[in-house]
């Protein structure tokens, strides 16, 4: 690191993360490549965010993530319009907003990408995140009339049974066979191991990026991490992710060396639970910043690195299912609590902010219990805000503002 004099708290523009520009380029290129897949004679598969993507990349299939598109739709304030279209199609307003937005975008070519996502040649659905994706991908399979592979990851309540381990291992083989049938190519296991290694490397780097927030002041916040997450979700298994996160890591370390925090006056450190409220990230970020509070970590961004130790790089086929099944949202609330405890200590947070997300039942139901357990076991305040990841109709700004203000008062008086 440079030995230049430490400049604290530069102007907002100076605090912006410079790598962001590069990140936008990478994402644009990725979507251009996906949209022009046919011209390059490549196939496109739609896959869920927690699905085992490495075999796809090893087979040269371009993975496309409707959930990432859902996030883009939310961030660009296009979700309500699309959700309403889905509702006219008969989908209940109580269903996940990603699913509603994406179903409507598929039917109309809507959303921030002109013409929508490229059509899938086939679908891969892994239910390690929810049962919603199973139903959503059935809708897509009927709509696009394409094959659907379901990678079933049994939920872990109290244990990951031997029976379940056997089942997921078997499915990795079936998945490979399915891909061979779809692509007409033989699986190349050497290539798969290589993709697996890149994937693991990217996950470890992503963890390092997140870990920079252990530093006080945190060089970025969870809101920045929400943005940078797109690469580990959509492009893991590719070299470009590693290059980008290395660059980002350097920048963040440089900020640490120079004492630059993302929040000008970081006094309080908070942990975020659940998906972002994509249409309100800036508002929320400013709101917390106005209290000198930095959201230094989130269970959501962590989900793409926390199982990395379960992946055996030399036996990707054997370990992929185990890792996929073990992610944060596929385990019981007591197991979630343990993970929260680790994060609370690691990032030295003063409070927990839980987004009770109407769109996402598996992430949100159980939060009331977790809230009580966190307050009791870790002795920090925990706030629940009722909102939605994309559906702006489920967001009451004044109510949430009042709750955040009151919560911050509790934190402040506790720290005094």
């Amino acid at each position, binding site marked *: 690191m440079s030995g230049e004099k430490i400049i604290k708290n530069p102007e907002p523009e100076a605090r912006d993360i410079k790598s962001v520009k590069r990140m936008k380029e990478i994402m644009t290129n990725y979507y251009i490549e996906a949209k022009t897949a046919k011209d390059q004679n490549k196939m496109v598969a739609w896959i869920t965010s927690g699905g085992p993507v490495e075999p796809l990349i090893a087979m040269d299939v371009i993975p496309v993530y409707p959930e990432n598109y859902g996030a883009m739709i939310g961030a660009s304030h296009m979700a309500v319009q699309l959700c309403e279209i889905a509702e006219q*199609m*008969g*989908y*209940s307003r*109580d*269903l*996940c907003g990603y*699913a509603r937005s994406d179903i409507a975008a598929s039917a109309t070519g809507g959303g921030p990408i002109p013409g929508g996502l490229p059509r899938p040649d086939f679908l891969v659905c892994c*239910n390690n995140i*929810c*049962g*919603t994706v*199973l*139903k*959503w991908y*059935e*809708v897509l*399979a*009927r709509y696009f009339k394409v094959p*659907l592979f*379901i990678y*079933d990851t*049994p*939920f872990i*309540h*109290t244990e990951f*049974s031997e*029976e*379940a381990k*056997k*089942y997921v291992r*078997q*499915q990795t083989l*079936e998945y490979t066979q399915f891909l061979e049938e779809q692509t007409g190519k033989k699986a190349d296991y050497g290539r798969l191991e290589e993709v697996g290694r890149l994937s693991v490397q990217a996950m470890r780097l992503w963890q390092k990026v997140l870990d920079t927030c252990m530093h006080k002041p945190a060089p970025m916040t969870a809101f920045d991490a929400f943005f940078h997450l797109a690469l580990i979700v959509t492009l893991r298994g590719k070299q470009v992710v590693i290059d980008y996160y290395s660059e980002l890591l350097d920048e963040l370390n440089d900020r640490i060396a120079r004492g630059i925090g993302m929040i000008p006056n970081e006094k309080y450190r908070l942990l975020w639970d659940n998906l972002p409220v994509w249409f309100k990230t800036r508002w929320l970020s400013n709101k917390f910043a106005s209290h000198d509070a930095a959201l230094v970590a989130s269970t959501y961004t962590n989900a793409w690195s926390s199982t990395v130790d379960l992946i055996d790089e030399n036996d990707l086929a054997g370990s992929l299912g185990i890792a996929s099944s073990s992610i944060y949202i596929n385990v*019981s*609330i*007591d197991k979630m609590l343990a993970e929260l405890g680790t994060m609370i200590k690691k990032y030295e947070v003063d409070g927990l902010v839980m987004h*009770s997300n*109407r769109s996402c*039942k*598996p992430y*949100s*139901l*159980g*939060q*009331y*219990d977790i809230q009580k357990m966190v307050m009791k076991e870790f002795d920090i305040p925990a706030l629940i805000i*009722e909102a939605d990841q994309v559906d702006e109709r489920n967001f009451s700004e004044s109510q949430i503002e009042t709750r955040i203000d009151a919560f911050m008062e509790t934190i402040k008086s506790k720290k005094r």
Partner: protein
Amino acid sequence: MKAMEIFYEISRDPYAYARKWKNQTGKKAVGYFCSYTPEELISGTGALPLRIFGTREHITCADSHLQSYCCSLVRGGLEDALTGRLAFLDGTVFPHTCDSIQRLSDIWRLNAGFPFHIDVILPVKLDTESARTYLLDVFHKFRRELEQELGPISDEKLSETIRLYNNIRRLLEEIYLMRSANPAVISGRDVYAVVKSAMVMDRNDLYGALRKTVDALKKESPAADNSKRIVLAGGVCNHPDIYSHLEKAGARVVWDELCTGTRYFEGMADESGDPVAALAQRYADRIVCPAKHCGADKRGRNLVDIVKNHQAQGVIFLILKFCDPHSFDYPYMKEYLDKKNIPSMLLELEEQLPAEGQLATRFESFIEML
């Protein structure tokens, strides 16, 4: 009908029945959710399997554990557990169904304090070899866990239980078929009371009571009225009033595809060979519920077939508000019906039915269309 009384008594207050049963027999009672619970394994230990429907009223405790956006079945079940109304249970069983039940299981295990809690983590798909193998493995595991809690189940006892359940299913189906042949033979309310009781009552006594009911029905031959023929589709319906409203509006239910209906008794388990394998096979062959996958449109095609087979004139979807699996299937199932010019309507069920007048108007205007 005299034979009906017992069913009304039980379906009105299943918990009172179960408590009394326990007192009289000295045996155990096990609560469960969802039609994917292999009840035979529970019955095989001598215990009483009892489906939990949950209260629909006066929620006081469950709301501090569950957000507003979860279905009334989950909320009402938890309420009963937390208020002690289920205190007589010796254990509970949670088959993996939907995201809400999945979390309910955690909340339940951590708060409700029953002597045992078993999660039966079923596969989510049933149309592959490995999923079926896993299903069988899971049933074997469930059997081992039950045996630990309730004592051994011999294969002979299990086979005998399977035969009993098959006989019960045949009788339930017979009632349904008689009703389909002449809907005036039994009221919708009666059928509801029978099916609901079937998930609660001592299964040997149930067999006897069903036998009597079928025999009595055989003697009835009411003149067929000109009510419209309706099929009900959806999940759990815990609103017996719906049937009287429908009948008043000029329609009779001739068949259903509800959890509190055909999904309970459809499909027989093989009576020869390995009993656990027979149970797994029954679930693998049965038309899936929307929380399970078996092809992308089997339920839709099946619903059209049901309508044809029972010469129904319309379909009413009964879906609990906040129920993801059913809500996701509704649009395409409706579309399949539309393509065959079969009218349908959707009634989203909340804790309480819509006001009587409102419901009557909705039913009447739908039935007029048929």
